[in-house]
C-alpha cells in the first residue's frame, strides 16, 4: 500500500521549514509524527506533491517549566509527555490524556503539535488544551499566539494558515489547589473517543470552585468548552445536584454526529455521563468530596 508519489524534504531548522512551505504552498503537507498523515496518504485522503518532515528540527521538541508557565515544543511526542516527571507534577491532566491516546507504538511517534493541527474532532489533545486554556504559538511570516479557544474551527480545520507552523503549546501551570481529569469513553481500548471530557478546576479558600474549565471532544464538529456547565459550578460549593446539572448543560451543548461510534442520542447521553464523571473525579483530586 503506497502513498502517491511526492517529493520529500527534511529541513534541519524551523526557518528552512517555513521557507519550504511558503514556496510549495497548497501542494505541501507537513509531516510531524505521521501517525495520521501516512494512513491518509495511503488511503488517498491526502495526496500532497511535497512532504515537509519536521522530525529533524530539534528545536521543536522540548518540555519546559518556566516561571509558572509550562511550555511544550510542538514536536514533543505523546510518549515523552506521558512519561515526563515534570508534566506529571505540573500538569497531570496531560499525562492522563497522553496515556489514553491510541497505543504505545503510536504514542512513541505521534506529536502533540501534529495532533492539534490535524484537528480530528475526536482527538484527545484538543479538549485538554482547551481545559488548560493553553496558548498556541505559530510561526509563519510573522509569529502569533492563538488562544486554544480560537484555534479549532471545525472538523480537521484550524486557525492556522498553510504557511504557518505550530511551534509551541504553553499554559499557566494550575495552582496547587486544583483538580483535573481527562475522562475518555472509548468503544474499545485504543480507539478514538466516543466522547472525551477534560476538566480543570481551581478551588478557592472558601471551598467554592474559583475557576472551572470543561472541554469536550467528539461531541460536536469541533472540540468545545462547555461554558454553561463551567458557569454553573464556578463560585459555587459543589454538590451532587450541581454536578448533575453541569453535566446536563454540557450534554445540551453537545452536537455529536452519528457515526460508527454511536448514534447522536447515545453520544449525547454519554456526554452527560462522562462529564459528570470527569467533574467528580476532578473534584476528588482537588480534595473535595461531595
Amino acid at each position, binding site marked *: 500500500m503506497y502513498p502517491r508519489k511526492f517529493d520529500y524534504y527534511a529541513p534541519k531548522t524551523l526557518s528552512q521549514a517555513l521557507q519550504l512551505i511558503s514556496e510549495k504552498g497548497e501542494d505541501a503537507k507537513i509531516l510531524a509524527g505521521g501517525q495520521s498523515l501516512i494512513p491518509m496518504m495511503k488511503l488517498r485522503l491526502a495526496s500532497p506533491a511535497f512532504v515537509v518532515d519536521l522530525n529533524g528540527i530539534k528545536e521543536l521538541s522540548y518540555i519546559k517549566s518556566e516561571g509558572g508557565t509550562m511550555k511544550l515544543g510542538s514536536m514533543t511526542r505523546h510518549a515523552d509527555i506521558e*512519561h515526563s516527571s515534570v508534566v506529571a507534577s505540573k500538569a497531570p491532566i496531560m499525562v492522563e490524556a497522553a496515556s489514553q491516546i491510541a497505543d504505545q507504538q503510536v504514542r512513541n511517534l505521534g506529536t502533540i503539535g501534529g495532533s492539534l493541527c490535524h484537528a480530528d474532532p475526536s482527538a484527545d489533545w484538543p479538549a485538554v488544551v482547551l481545559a488548560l486554556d493553553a496558548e498556541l504559538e505559530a510561526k509563519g511570516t510573522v509569529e502569533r499566539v492563538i488562544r486554544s479557544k480560537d484555534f479549532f474551527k471545525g472538523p480537521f480545520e484550524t486557525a492556522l494558515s498553510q504557511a504557518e507552523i505550530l511551534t509551541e503549546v504553553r499554559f499557566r501551570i494550575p495552582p496547587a489547589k486544583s483538580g483535573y481529569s481527562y475522562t475518555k469513553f472509548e468503544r474499545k481500548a485504543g480507539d478514538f473517543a466516543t466522547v472525551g471530557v477534560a476538566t480543570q478546576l481551581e478551588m478557592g479558600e472558601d471551598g467554592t470552585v474559583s475557576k472551572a474549565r470543561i472541554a469536550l471532544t467528539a461531541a460536536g464538529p469541533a472540540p468545545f468548552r462547555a461554558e454553561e456547565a463551567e458557569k454553573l459550578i464556578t463560585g459555587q460549593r459543589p454538590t451532587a445536584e450541581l454536578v448533575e446539572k453541569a453535566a446536563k448543560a454540557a450534554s445540551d451543548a453537545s452536537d455529536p454526529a452519528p457515526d460508527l461510534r454511536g448514534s447522536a442520542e447515545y453520544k449525547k447521553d454519554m456526554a452527560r455521563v462522562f462529564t459528570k464523571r470527569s467533574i467528580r473525579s476532578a473534584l476528588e483530586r482537588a480534595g473535595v468530596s461531595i
Partner: protein
Amino acid sequence: MGNEKTRTRYIGRSIPQNDSPLKVTGTATYASDIELPGMLFAKLVTSDRAHAKILSIDTKEAKSVPGVVAIATGSDFPFRIGIYVGDRDLLATDKVRWVGHPVAAVIAETLQAAEEAAEKVQVQYEDLPAVFNVRDALKPGAPIIHEHMSEYRVFPAFSPVPGTNIANKFVLKRGDAKAALDKAHLVIEEEFRMPRVSHAFMETQTVVALYRRDGVVEVWSSLQSPFAARYLMAQSLNMPVNNVIIHHPFCGGGFGGKAGLGWEPLVALLSKMADNKPVKLILSRKEQFVSAAVREAFIAHVKAGFEKDGKFVAYQADFIMDCGGYGDYTVNVSRTTGYAADGSYDIENLDVTCRAVYTNQVPTTAMRGFGYPEGHWPLEQLLDRAAARLHLDPVKIRLVNLVKPGESTTGTGEHLREDAGDPRRVLSTIVKELKPNGRIPESKEPWVIRARGFALNVKGPSQPPNASGSSILKFNEDGSIDLLVGTGLFGQGTTTALCMIVAEEFGLPLEKVRVPFERGTDSTAYTWQTVGSRGLFVDGNATLGAIREAKAKIVEISSQVFRVPKEDVVVRDGAASVRGRPWLKIPLSDIAMAYTYPNGNAIGGPLIGTGTWTSVLNSYLNPETGQGIPSIFHTFGGTGVEITLNLLTGEICVEKGVQVEDIGRVINRLGVEQQMDGGMIMGMSISLWEKMQVDGQGWVTNPNFSNYYIARMKDMPGEIRKVAIETPQEDGPWGARGVGEMTMISVAPAIANAVFRATGVILRDEPMTPETVWLAIREQRPDLLEKAMKALGGTSDTTHLQRPLVRVKSGQNETS
C-alpha cells in the same frame, strides 16, 4: 493400542507446538514471505457498485503505467468455482454482485506499479436494482442475483432453487411441531440476529502461483486445506489433479475463512498470462473485508414449546442466512445450522427450515464452528427464558432436556453412542466452576451489575460423508520418523498432537518424530480438508493405522530375528523385544532400513507404515426430513461467564470465563488450553464488538481494525477456568474428540443469559455493543436505570479512572 488408561510418556502432557522456535524468531516462512525469481505482483480492481451490469472495461491508461505486464478481466476466465455450489466467478463476468466484487486484476513488475495501474482501470456500469437483506431477496419480484443458477455445478447434498435467490434450502423434521406447540404449556416466539463478521486472520489471503511451462501449476498459498484446494482448482482449470501442486507454508490464521478454494486459480491463470512468470497476490485488509468471503449474517425466527416441568417439546425455527454475492460454503452453513438446531437437547418435535439466500452484499463462507454458533445463539437463550417463565433454574431445565448418550437419538435420528460424551458432567462442572446460583458479590457501584450466565454446546465436524484422511509414517536410518499427514497447520497444533501419539506408541523421544512444517500436495498424505475440528480425529485415526502397519512389519522382522512367535514380540521404548526375555532386544534404528545379521545378510527394508480413515456410518441426509447421520463425533461442552454490566453506558465486561469440553481424551493439554482460551477471547470479541457495518448502498463502512474491533490483550477476562472432561470415545485416537471450534460457540449466549438473568433484559442481536445494550435497558427496564441514576446522586462514579499508567523511563527532551 488406543484407549487404555495407562501411564503415558506424552499423551495428556503439555507440549509446546514443535514449530514454536521458528515462530518466536521470526523465521517461520508464511506465504506472504515467499519470493520467487522474476516474481510479478497482482492487484485487484473491485466494484464500487452493489449490483450492476458491466458495460465496458477500459484498461488503456492503466496499461501505460511503467512496469505493467498484463491486465485480466472476467472474460479471460469463463468458468465458475465453489466447493458446494459453483456460483463464483474469479473476476466478474457479466455483472457485479456486490461492492468489492473483483472486476479486473493488474499484473506488474512491482506492487507499486500494480497499485497505481489498478487505480486507472475504468469500468462503465449500468446499475441494476440491488437487494441488501434476505427478507427482501425472498420477496416475489426481487432482483435475481444469479440468473443462471440452473447451470451451476451443485454437490449432491444441496438444493438451490433456480429462478429465486435461494442458494440452498434445508429442512429438519421430526414429529409434529405444530401440533405440539398448540398443546404446549408455554410457547416463546422470538427473533434473533447476527451480523456479518470477519475472520480477521492476521495474514490476509496470499497466493504465489507459477504456471510452469510443462503445464504443471505450483501454488504457495495461505490456506487451510491444500488437498481440497488442489482438487477444486484442477476441476475448475480442467487439469489432471496431479498437475496442480499446492505448497502449504506456515499460515497466519484461518478460522474457516481459508477453507475450500480461494484465489489460487485466479493467480495461477495470471501467471499463465504473464508468460509463465510467478505472480503474487496479497489481499489488502480492506479487500479481505469486502472482496473475500466473511461469516454470514442471519435472522432466526423461532418458536419454542415447553411443558410445565420444563420439558422442551417442540421447536420451530426458520433461519435465513445471508450468502451475499455467492454462496460457496454458506450453503453448508445453512445445512449444518438446520441439522444441529436442537443442540444438546432431546426435543421430540422439530420443524426447522434453513435457507441460504443471495443478496448484493459481501459473500460469506465457513467460520469456526459454523452452523453451531448460529443455532446456539437462539437455543440457549430460549432455555433460560423458559426457565424464568416456568420458575425453574437454568441448570434444572437443562437437566430435564439434555440428551442421554446410549439412549437418545439426535434430531437427525442418529442413535447417540454410549461413549459419545457426558453432557451432564459438563453441566455439573460448569455449575461447580461458575456457581451460577451462588452469591454474587454486590458491586460497590449501584449502576454496575455483576451477573453470571452459562450456555451449553455440542458440535461435530460438518463434512461430506465420504471425507477421508490418510497418513504415511517413514522411518529414517536412526529410527527417527517423518510423519506425512495432509492436515493443514494454522495454529491449532494438530501435527504436534499427532507426533505425540506416534512417539507414545513407539516409545520414542518426541524430537525423533516430525511432521514437516511446509508441505506440498505432491509430497504428503491426503486428507480432505482441515476444517470442522476433524484433524486430530481423522488424521489421528489414519496415523494409528500407519502405526499399526509399521508395528506389524517390525514384529514380523523381529520374530524372524529372535526366532520367536510374533505374539511374543513387543514394540516399546524405541525397540522391539521379546516378552519375558528383555535381553532379546533390537533398537528400531537397527530395523529401520533393513535388519542386518552379523554375517551381512539383511532382511526387511526401509520401514514405512500407511493408514487411512473413512467414516463408515455417515450418509447424506434425507432431503425432505434431514434425517441421517451427519457427524463423525459430537463434542459436548459449555461456557460460563461472570460479567459486569454498566447500566449507564451499556458496557459489558467479561470478568471471568469458564470453559468445559468433553473431548474424550486430552492428547496435548497445552493445545487444549490454547483452544479454550482462544475460543473464549475470540467468542467474546465477536459477541461484544464485531460487526461489519453496511450503509444503504451496500458499502461496508468499517473495513479496517480502527472501526472493526477485535479483542486486545487488555480486553481479556481476568480469569479463564478450563476443564477438559475425558469420556473416551472408542473409535477416537486414544479416545479423543475434536475441540478447536467448540470453545467459541457458547460464549455469546452465555453472556446474553447473564444479562437476562440479572436484569430480565433480552438481547436479540449480536454484537452486544454498549449502545445496543444501553438501548435495550432503556426500552425494557427503564426502572433499573432510574434506580441507578438516583443512586448516583450521592455516590461517586469514577472507578474507571483507576486505569494504570505504564511506567517506562521518563522522556528524554524534558528540562525544568
